């Protein structure tokens, strides 16, 4: 397996959707190729760090209350029509 082929398959490798044979070829390549191994480690970690970018904004209680009121009105209106 060439380095470029190995790197192309990282996504599928991480998702675990490859055949056993291909998985083993990648594992073998990663064992002997430090270059791909480093890229694999940092690629995997990049995915993990992206998850930590989930800046979780919290809406104000007031905003949520307003939304509920709007939706309640809409739901009541719809029920009347039915």
């Amino acid at each position, binding site marked *: 397996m060439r*380095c*470029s082929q190995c*790197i*192309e398959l*990282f*996504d*599928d490798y991480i998702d675990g959707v490859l055949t056993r044979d291909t998985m083993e070829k990648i594992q073998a390549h990663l064992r002997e190729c*430090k*270059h791909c*191994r*480093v*890229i694999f*480690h*940092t*690629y*995997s*970690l*990049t*995915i993990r*760090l*992206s*998850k*930590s*970018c*989930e*800046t*979780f*904004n*919290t*809406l104000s209680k007031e*905003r*949520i209350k307003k*939304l*509920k009121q*709007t*939706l*309640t009105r*809409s*739901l*009541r209106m*719809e*029920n009347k029509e039915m």
Partner: protein
Amino acid sequence: MSKDKTITDASLVERVKQGDTQAMEAIVERYSNKVYNLAYHLTRDPTASEEIMQDVFLTVLSKIHTLNNNAYFSTWLYRVTTNAAYAHMRDSRKVKKNLEDLRVKDLEKDTSQIYDWSSLPEDILLSDESKQILKDAIDSLPEPMRIVVLMKDVEGLKNEDIAKTLGLSLPAVKSRLHRARLLLRESLSNYFKKYATARPGGEQSEM
């Protein structure tokens, strides 16, 4: 008001279908922040995201009878959200034009960086500074890649849902995602390399 996390989405949806406003409020409690945040990640516009959130819930409420399998509620909700955010972006940012431009220069060059920063301690990896580097890198990705990586790696949507939402094939989603990750990895490598000599414990290149 029901805040019980053990009530399934499916049973809440069933009650909403019968006009139960309390169940609807429970769904708002459960999902309004998620919908808002997804819209915010995609549009980077807090005001637009509030409008999108309200529109999404109104749309979902008016179409809830068309949802056949109640268990798919959240998938459906996220799809409506991304569609709405995407429509907003198409109007405001001319995303469509950029959609064609997927070529990325010198991806091969990327693979020449071989400092293994994955062995750095967590406090460096997860520092505010490194998070900011990554956020900036995500923001500066070509639009088609930015959207996919935000949906998948940041927000945790499924490839299939992203494909449906963006009208792409699954392989197209995967390919964009892979390229986006390689570019982000490159940005992080550029940032973390300052630790390469300072921390001899990291795996050193032999090449």
